[in-house]
């Protein structure tokens, strides 16, 4: 069997669809979590969902749907604890992290299942996806994308400044709960692909990658979804290609590929941020005494290589701690 034959296999096709949808949905909701500085919320919900999976195993029902229910309940609880402000946001997250994971392992044991069963959910099992799983993934992804993209203006306003949004007449708590519920839903969508312990990576790493180069919220969101898709599909194909030689799990491959894309864009982001800092216009302050340079051997211009920073109606050429502005035949110190 060659590499290309893999794509004619039913399980591989199903895995590709699931990976593509996960790559779209997780970063879409992740962007709003990062905007609210709740990047680790996804991890918290993922841990709570472990308990949901275990309940599914115990009761013999579909672990996907019990995971959805428990993850949504956990997300709502987390949001309410955070909103009440009794506990610090990250302490509330930590409490649910541990409770969810411990509960999951305990209940799995009671259900008589071993660690191997749970592992498929903790680290993903793209190869074991059924047709029914693909359909539920499609439905959940459509819900997540419709809501996040359709309510983008409202969700952006709430995520960036809840006080302002409330005074503007939005039901901030409803929107916050909506984001939490959508996060829980996309986590259970991603559970099959990368697993519950790595799911947060698909929500956060594409956003971190995208914001290295993007300047606006919309491009960050679109870029994150693109990175998510490339990482999810690319990681799956890569792991399939490598599996001829060694055992390579798709989940970790997807996450490491996303991290590799972040590592590749990071120096670019550092350079862009440094450049925009250097080129930021100088403030216009009046009434500074006129001071011209002594003998200036160098002639500044478009291509002289010194940053030309806007300063009022002219530009200052920056070099060696000086700001030189053209004034007739000489340069002024600004």
């Amino acid at each position, binding site marked *: 069997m060659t590499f290309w034959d893999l794509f004619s296999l039913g399980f591989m096709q199903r895995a590709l669809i699931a990976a593509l949808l996960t790559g779209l949905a997780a970063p879409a909701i992740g962007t709003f979590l990062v905007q609210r500085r709740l990047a680790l919320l996804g991890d918290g919900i993922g841990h709570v969902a472990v308990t949901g999976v275990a309940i599914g195993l115990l009761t013999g029902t579909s672990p996907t749907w019990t995971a959805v229910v428990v993850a949504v309940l956990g997300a709502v609880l987390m949001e309410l604890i955070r909103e009440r402000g009794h506990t610090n946001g990250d302490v509330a997250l930590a409490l649910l992290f541990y409770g969810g994971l411990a509960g999951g392992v305990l209940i799995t044991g009671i259900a008589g299942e071993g660690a191997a069963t749970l592992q498929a959910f903790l680290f993903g099992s793209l190869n074991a996806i059924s047709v029914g799983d693909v359909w539920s993934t499609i439905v959940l992804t459509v819900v997540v994308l419709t809501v996040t993209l359709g*309510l983008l203006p*409202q969700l952006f306003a709430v995520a960036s400044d809840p006080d302002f949004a*409330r005074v503007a007449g939005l039901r901030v708590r409803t929107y916050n709960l909506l984001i939490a519920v959508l996060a829980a839903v996309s986590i259970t969508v991603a559970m099959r692909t990368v697993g519950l312990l790595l799911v947060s990576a698909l929500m956060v790493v594409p956003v971190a990658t995208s914001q290295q180069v993007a300047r*606006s*919220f919309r491009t960050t969101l679109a870029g994150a979804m693109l990175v998510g898709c490339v990482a999810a599909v690319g990681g799956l194909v890569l792991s399939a290609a490598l599996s001829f030689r060694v055992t390579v799990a798709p989940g970790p491959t997807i996450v490491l590929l996303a991290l590799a894309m972040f590592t590749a864009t990071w120096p670019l982001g550092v350079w862009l941020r440094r450049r925009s800092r250097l080129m930021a216009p100088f403030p216009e302050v009046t009434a500074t005494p006129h001071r011209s340079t002594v003998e200036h051997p160098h002639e500044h211009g478009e291509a002289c290589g010194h940053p030309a920073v806007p300063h009022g109606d002219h530009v200052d050429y920056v070099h060696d701690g000086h700001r030189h502005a053209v004034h007739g035949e000489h340069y002024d110190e600004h």
Partner: protein
Amino acid sequence: MTTSDPSAPVVLDQVSVPIGGRPVLRDVDLTVRSGEVVTLLGPNGSGKSTLVRAVTGLLPHTRGTVRLFGTPIEQFRDWPRLGFVPQRSSAAGGVPATVREVVASGRVGRRRLLRPSGAADRVAVESALEVVGLVDRASYGVSQLSGGQQQRVLIARALAGEPDLLVLDEPTAGVDLPNQQALADALGRLKARGATILLVAHEIGPMMPLIDRSVVMRDGRVAYDGPPLTQEVASHTHHAHDHPADGPGSHDHVPHVASPLDFERRNRS
């Protein structure tokens, strides 16, 4: 003291606001009439921000009535008429956003769900950017701007909703002088259009000529309500309400003792 016009943009009548069960504002009367620019002054912890949060509905009050445009705040639904500039050091969130995106988010109160933005939205955003003088920065990321420029972005966001009443909480905190001037120019343009402005300020600086009235808060109560004061005078004023006709110039700078009895005398008169 304040003539109560029931349909004025803001009317507070004997309002008490608790935070965590402890009464912070007590018996506050305040009227902001249409077209007025009122500054709220007072030291840290005097209840200025609490008052603003009560007026904007962010904090519930336990006693008295808060009316916005004549409607008790509990029944008030016309939130787009109110523009709010919260106290924030930065307009940036965890994800990059452009100046235009942040300003456009000020339209949420007027936009219908699941509808794309219309021509009216774009016109309002452009005109808000113009008022604060940031048209040429519209496609910049907000985190690239200075603190003072970010404050102007937050004001433009409130203006994009085309409010009749603008409530600003410390827009000048930590803002350099050129940006304070730009803020004052923006507020001046709004005042000329007939906007009503309630402003919490630590530093008044270049905004001085715009102000119609000053209200000084002290320990959760109104200590002065009358002709404009500068911050320097306000921090010494205790008994100005005994001679409200006098301007700030007649103040003698002798430290006085404010006692609750003075308030009761004032309320009875």
